[in-house]
């Protein structure tokens, strides 16, 4: 399972892509718990959201291994 990282998330993770094992499937909420544990720096920043297949996703959504997954830190375009 590949997780795209943008902005400050890319700096925290140290890469623009994070590869995770996800054979049994997990929810967005479970992914966030994993990320906050593996990269505690996320807790120092404003909350981020997760996009699944290029759409904002809530914590209950189940992720399947073929989904396009991205960490979306607070946006600041414009």
């Amino acid at each position: 399972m590949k997780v795209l990282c943008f902005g400050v998330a890319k700096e925290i993770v140290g890469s623009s892509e994070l590869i995770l094992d996800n054979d049994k499937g997990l929810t967005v909420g479970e992914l966030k718990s994993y990320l906050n544990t593996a990269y505690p720096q996320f807790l120092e920043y404003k909350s981020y959201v997760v996009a699944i297949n290029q759409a904002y996703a809530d914590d209950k959504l189940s992720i399947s291994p073929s989904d396009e997954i991205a960490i979306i830190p607070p946006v600041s375009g414009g």
Partner: protein
Amino acid sequence: MDSIIDIQVLSTPLSIDACYNFVLDEKCGGIDLFVGTVRRWNKGKEVTHLHFEAYVEMAVKEMKKIALAAIEKYGIEKISIHHRIGQVELEGIAVIIAVSSKHRKSAFEACSYAIDTLKNEVPIWKKEFLIDGSYWVNSRP
């Protein structure tokens, strides 16, 4: 649909003329353009330049949603939204929103709606480079 909305995320300088020419319409008497530029001073700190990063495919989808919502809500005719990515110098253009409408009031309202919503919802990130450091805008509490 594609003939009334024009969404672009570009790594080259943005063109006001391009946005203006897209929305220009013989049915419309008014065009409103919002141009977001890079300013030297932000909250008392001196900026040297900005760097924009986008989740391009999703950003384009979100910008299309905003364009369609603006047409739906305000009855405007055409809308063009261009956003820059990469390094942008002082006074350079970060974003252009152009809207054409039969009535000027709806042009202003739609343009204002579009830039407000873009700043809240489109996955684009700005890193501000200051004289003495750099940081991702909005990321800190």
